[in-house]
């Protein structure tokens, strides 16, 4: 049934950024050369990823074995690229280029220290992200997941001050702690239960295993909490804590790569480990649904009370991640497809918002929402992009966010879970409530008395260009979502 092509393309895509690491370190004295390396690696990576798209669209999967069956466990480390992995890889690798551009502007604008370390670990974490996207079995997935946690830690603690250290400590203890405490036993249990099979190829790993509602729910929640990058409550606090990182890190890693890796893993677990049939039979997915629904509503409410712009974005991200988890937990084809699409849609919207927050900080040094009055007049591009990002995340036309949200709501209706459908709708309203006042402040409130306009201008072009492009991307996805539809549709059986 499954026709797979063996190819080294995914390996090269993953290696492109990994090989850039030594070069970046080598060119640590030559700033321009170093940043050129990052760029070239980014384009090369995107090139490899794009080269795989036609193969995937033919309905094939690309497989590569990196390490033949690890001795003792008999599970190889292998890549297996399918529609879902492709979607995620496309999003991550295209946004990396823009983030690199943005990072250059941001880091130079603030004259940050240790930029070499920053770019090197950035490239490393991108490799880990693609590793997760392409992972062909649970073990590979887990290994790259942990590599990502470790390689982003120096980025989160970049400032090396007290705040950064405590943020970094929270970050690592949540991510490593939950993965050791929940994910490892869950994987081992799966391993024992399935008789040593962890591969995503073929039918779901636990298909046909005997589970009750309770045991299924325990295992599913162990996975969902174990991959705590997905930000399910109560294991979400690492995300606001990690906002001490420089904004490009927050933007790419905490709006796109890291958090999306979390939900990506949850999607893989639901579709690849349990399989929708099994969950449908034992109803365990309802537990995950309600935990996610709770997270959606609660995080939206918390977001409303945050004055720090990045923290508000962080809580918004937590809510949006649970949209995705809720979507896949609904198990209906539309909801699952919607949640896969939402990975991409939300990524473009949220990265725009983070870029804007960073640009405001670079240009004015402002971190708090209450300080943003009247900024729209001096920073029209930035605040305009912010408005588009907010529209996309809220899920209004003409942005991509609308499409995925329609699918999610549709899926909830299919599942006849009207309470959960209401959760989607209520939270969309809440999204609007906490985003649009910011836009209103920026464009329609006057500057506070006594504040001068001189000296405040747009952020450097290296910051403004990427955020304009991502905002543009959000709109573009509304009009041309074809590729995304096709890629995600590949993952839905029976379509």
């Amino acid at each position, binding site marked *: 049934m499954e026709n797979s092509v063996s190819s080294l393309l995914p390996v090269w895509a993953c290696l492109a950024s990994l090989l850039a690491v030594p070069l970046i370190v080598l060119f640590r004295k030559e700033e321009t050369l170093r940043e050129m390396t990052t760029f070239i690696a980014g384009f090369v990576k995107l090139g490899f990823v794009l080269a795989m798209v036609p193969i995937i669209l033919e309905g094939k999967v690309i497989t590569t074995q990196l390490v033949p069956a690890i*001795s003792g466990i008999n599970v190889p480390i292998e890549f297996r690229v399918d529609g879902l992995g492709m979607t995620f890889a496309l999003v991550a690798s295209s946004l990396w280029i823009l983030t690199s551009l943005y990072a250059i502007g941001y880091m130079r604008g603030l004259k940050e220290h240790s930029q070499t370390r920053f770019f090197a670990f950035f490239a490393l974490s991108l490799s880990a992200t693609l590793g997760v996207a392409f992972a062909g079995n649970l073990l590979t997935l887990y290994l790259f997941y942990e590599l990502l946690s470790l390689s982003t830690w120096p980025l989160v603690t970049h400032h090396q*001050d007290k705040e950064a250290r405590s943020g*970094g400590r929270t970050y690592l203890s949540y991510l490593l702690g939950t993965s050791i405490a929940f994910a490892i036993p869950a994987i081992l*249990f799966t391993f024992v239960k399935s008789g040593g099979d962890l591969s995503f190829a073929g039918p779901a790993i636990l298909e046909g295993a005997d589970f009750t509602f309770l045991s299924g729910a325990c295992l599913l929640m162990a996975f969902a909490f174990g991959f705590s990058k997905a930000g399910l409550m109560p294991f979400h606090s690492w995300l606001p804590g990690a906002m001490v990182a420089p904004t490009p890190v927050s933007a790419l890693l905490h709006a796109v790569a890291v958090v999306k890796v979390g939900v990506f893993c949850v999607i893989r677990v639901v579709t690849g480990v349990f399989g929708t049939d099994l969950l449908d039979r034992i109803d365990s997915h309802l537990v995950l649904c309600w935990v996610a629904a709770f997270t959606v509503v609660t995080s939206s409410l918390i977001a409303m009370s945050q004055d720090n712009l990045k923290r508000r974005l962080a809580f918004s991200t937590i809510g949006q991640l649970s949209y995705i988890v809720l979507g896949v937990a609904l198990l209906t084809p539309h909801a699952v497809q919607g949640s896969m699409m939402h990975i991409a849609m939300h990524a473009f919207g949220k990265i725009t918002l983070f870029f804007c927050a960073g640009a405001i900080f670079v240009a004015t040094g402002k971190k708090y929402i209450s300080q943003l009055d009247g900024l729209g007049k001096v920073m029209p591009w930035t605040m305009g992009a912010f408005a588009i990002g907010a529209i996309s995340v809220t899920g209004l036309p003409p942005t991509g966010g609308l499409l995925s949200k329609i699918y999610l709501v549709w899926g909830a209706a299919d599942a006849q879970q009207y309470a959960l459908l209401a959760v989607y709708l209520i939270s969309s309203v809440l999204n609007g409530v906490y985003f649009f006042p910011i836009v209103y402040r920026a464009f329609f409130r006057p500057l506070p008395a006594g504040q001068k306009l001189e000296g405040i201008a747009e952020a450097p072009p290296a910051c403004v260009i990427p955020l304009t492009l991502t905002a543009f991307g959000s709109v573009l996805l509304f009009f041309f979502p074809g590729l995304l539809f096709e890629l995600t549709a590949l993952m839905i059986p029976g379509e």
Partner: protein
Amino acid sequence: MTDQIPAILVLAPLFGALIIGLAGQKDHRVCFPVTIVSLLVSLFAAFGAVVEVVRSGEIDYFMGGWEEPIGIGIHLHIDSLNAPLLVAIGIVSVLVAIFSIRRIGDKNTEKTPHFYSLYLMLCVGLFGITIAGDAFNLFVLIEVSSLTSYGLIAMGSSRRGTLAAFNYVLMGTVGASFYLLGVGYLYLMTGTLNMQEIHTIFLANPDIASSKAVAISFILILIGIWIKMAFFPLYGWLPNAYSYCPSSSACILAPLMTKISVYVMIRVMLGVFGIEWVFASPGYSNLVVWLAVIAILAGSMLALAQREIKKMLCYLIVAEVGYMVGGAWLADEKLWGLTGSLYHILGDAAMTLCLFLAAGIFAKRFNAIEIEDLEGLFKKAPWTAAGFVVGALAMIGVPPTCGFFSKFYLIRGGIEANHWEFVVALLVSSLVNAVLFFRIFEIAFFGNKPPEGHGHHEEEVAELKEEHHPEIPTWTGTSSLLVASAIVILLGIFNGEIVELIRIGLEDLPQFASRL
């Protein structure tokens, strides 16, 4: 030559010790080459033993051809369970010997020959324990290694070390005496001291095997060995003894002594009493697993409370002993727990060695005793730091280090035996280890007291002052540390082969045929 391997293993370091005792007093330069050469001979023989075991199965060797029951033969037995352990002892002892060059002697050089002869005798004891096929010879060899370790611990200049050594003597002697008493009961019931024969008698006469005297002898032997391996709650002697003794002594004792005792326990369980007999009543094995769970949790928590690096590592050993004892007693159908336990003996030896070598280098070069003294370590000594990190990751259980795979087998055993408390304890201990070591990494990476404000203070971080000892070559310690950390990773990568060897050993035992 190959048929003399068991003898060579033990005799090479024994003669080395003799030569050092005779000639080393006059010329200290003799000590080190003799030590290295004799240990290398043993290591070579250990490799030979592995090859021989893989090729043609178990090796039984009778010293001087005195086969039992004519005399009290010295029966040496090598199979695929203890052959890897021999290699581990060989490698650890060679690496620590390299690490110890002039380290013990730099304050009072007249002790150098004493150190090396004790060191070699310790190796004789350890090799002997591993291959002893006779319950009483085992006692003598345990005492040989214990006596030398008392000496090695008391050699340091620390007053607390002397006190700790005294306590260790008392505890160790009580432990050995309990073991001896247990063996006495065994002899009373079976009339022989040869492990294989005792086992055969038990299999042939179920009424003897089920008698109270045999049960009591088993309990006495277990208590004796548990004292020796510092199993909770009998661990009191260990932390002070291993943390206040000279670094070289700690580096050889910490990786090997407790681990070999665990092996002795497993050997007694498998080879003397038989697994069916030991696991006959699940109540007892559940009790031991619960004790192991408490050991793991208590060891981890106590480690968390320590401020000194070596003390912390010592409590981690207590926790690791809990891993191995618990794993051995899981009694799951396919014996994955026991497999994991045997594999963990090797893995834990490698990673403990790694960490203690690193701690020794910290203490020697930077005078860093407490965790807080490690500020700026990554800048000052990147290679040592790298070795330490590898050891720490193995302790946490990060793949591809051996720590991950031993936890994998142990947890698998725990799941299959439905001992969820053991699984939980292992995970909690991994978490605690992660907290412990990341706390150290943080201090070593960022410095202890971060200046307020934003970045730009890397230059101020490195407070660590290198104590300059021109006469001590620093590369010896670092290179053995790096080799040790490479072994930690290699053990992980080739875990399948090692486990296969262990499984062959388990399958060889007749009572397993039905289980596997």
